[in-house]
């Protein structure tokens, strides 16, 4: 089972969000970056488990600048065998997807795994784009993946109010949701081994940019909270009905 796991770099979940250059750039000052949680906790860990079950190789891929190497090394410490970084600073989901597909199309992967979305742009787009560009089936929001052999996978996909159980033969693309695997903390041996694992840097091909972010804004501040007397829940119900008009 040869699996490509595509990981993204995102600001950590507690990062303060602000913007510079007349609200056109994300303010990176003082922001710590992590591997996107869905990519790391679920997509990568499940891929490593499948490799342990069937043999083969897990390749980690990131599209980004050299500063992303720390995150890539963490992925190698968790259990990926080798890594590829496509040297580009993508400005859109489409650009990222094109770089991934350009690399992956000549390789022989049985699976291409993504997280269900990144926690910065929340797009849920790259996985489907790569699937289309490579003409592979795509299963989004996979919360369970079982394989008895490398010929067929049974995948549970989260849908509104329930799940759908699907069968698909490799190669396929999937995006990983909670439940697909358990978060794994790299151990010392993994961290040491990661330093010796290969990290190939690939030059990016020119890609057109059909969509781009032109500005940001922060949400309007909420007005001050209206405190309600705990002895008077009738008052809260009245406000929800008459003022907020939600009940």
């Amino acid at each position: 089972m040869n699996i490509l796991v595509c990981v993204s770099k995102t600001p950590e979940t507690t990062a303060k969000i602000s913007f510079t250059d007349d609200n056109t750039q994300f303010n990176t000052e003082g922001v710590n970056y992590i591997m996107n949680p869905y990519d790391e906790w679920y997509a990568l860990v499940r891929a490593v488990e499948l490799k342990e079950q069937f043999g083969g190789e897990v390749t980690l891929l990131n599209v980004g600048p050299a500063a992303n190497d720390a995150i890539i090394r963490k992925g190698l410490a968790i259990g990926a065998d080798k890594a590829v970084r496509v040297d580009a600073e993508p400005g859109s989901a489409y650009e990222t997807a094109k770089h991934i597909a350009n690399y992956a199309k000549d390789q022989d992967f049985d699976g291409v795994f993504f997280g269900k979305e990144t926690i910065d742009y929340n797009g849920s787009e790259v996985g489907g784009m790569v699937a289309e560009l490579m003409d592979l089936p795509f299963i989004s929001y996979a919360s369970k993946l079982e394989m008895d052999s490398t010929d067929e996978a049974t995948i549970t996909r989260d849908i509104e109010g329930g799940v759908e159980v699907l069968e698909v033969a490799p190669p396929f693309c999937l995006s990983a949701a909670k439940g697909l695997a358990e978060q794994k903390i790299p151990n010392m041996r993994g961290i040491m081994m990661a330093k010796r694992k290969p990290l190939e840097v690939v030059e990016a091909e020119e890609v057109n940019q059909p969509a781009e972010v032109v500005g940001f804004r922060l949400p309007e501040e909420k007005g001050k909270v209206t405190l309600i007397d705990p002895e008077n829940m009738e008052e809260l119900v009245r406000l929800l009905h008459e003022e907020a008009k939600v009940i």
Partner: protein
Amino acid sequence: MSVLVYAEAHGGAFNKKAFEVVTYARKTADILGTECIAATVNSDNPEKLGVYGAHKVVQLQSGALEKFDAGTYTKALDQAAEKLGADTVILQHSSDGKSLIGRLAARWGCGSVSAVNQLPTYEGGFKVEKPVFSGKAFATYSISSDRRVLSLVGNSLPPEEMGDEQVDVEKFDLDIEAPKVKVVKVDKVKGEIPLPEAELVVSAGRGMKGPENWGIIEELADTLGATTACSRPVSDSDWRPHHEHVGQTGIAIRPNLYIAIGISGAIQHLAGVNNSDTIVVINKDPEAPFFKSADYGVVADLFDVVPRLTEAIKKFKAS
């Protein structure tokens, strides 16, 4: 050139999200100065989409479309758009819509913006805003390609009756190869409104002290007709099923009413709920950060105040 909106029918029927996306698409078509055509698959009453603004409805038909698959449905929408000369496709930001948006945009090599919650503008180019950083900010995207694909987050705008059922419904028989993915079964939680679709949500956190105390939460939710949710520590400790987990790494929701009980309001939790219309926070700690994001706050012991809120709602409903 026209706007093609895909309205999802589940079990033959549309839900509110389908009508929302049609209204959104109609308003987008008005902005672009063009026509709004609704596409649907396996719907029992496609003419209903005319009520919410579609100028015309097409029912996409093929043996390959019996069950949802991202690959085959992308091909169906591609063929329909081609036939109709549509350059803008609008999807629901649902589990199916999220599987389609990337595929269709990549097929066309065009710009796409997922999870939009505002209408686009069309002055000096096509621009549209969406929430980013899990709701902590908004970004405006500019799409420069001739074609474009958007997905609309639920509860962004109310469905409006902008037309009637006297709308042309045309059947498109499409030639599409069978999907590579086989649907074995579908399991839905019975009786409950799924969280992403719920308009009223009662959510509880670590302040509940243990899973055995959830009776008062369920009673409040039942009385209100609300769906229950929980914070991450609660689902991580298996006090509640993980599909109830809302927040940055759980699901993001935007109900009309979110009642947070015994949840301190960590930034990761807020990220998943701060687009709710009205937020009520019940917490005994007046310093809980959640109060800063709340519309209404009750500083009190939840075990004391929640049953009284339930009683007050019962009285209100009876009156």
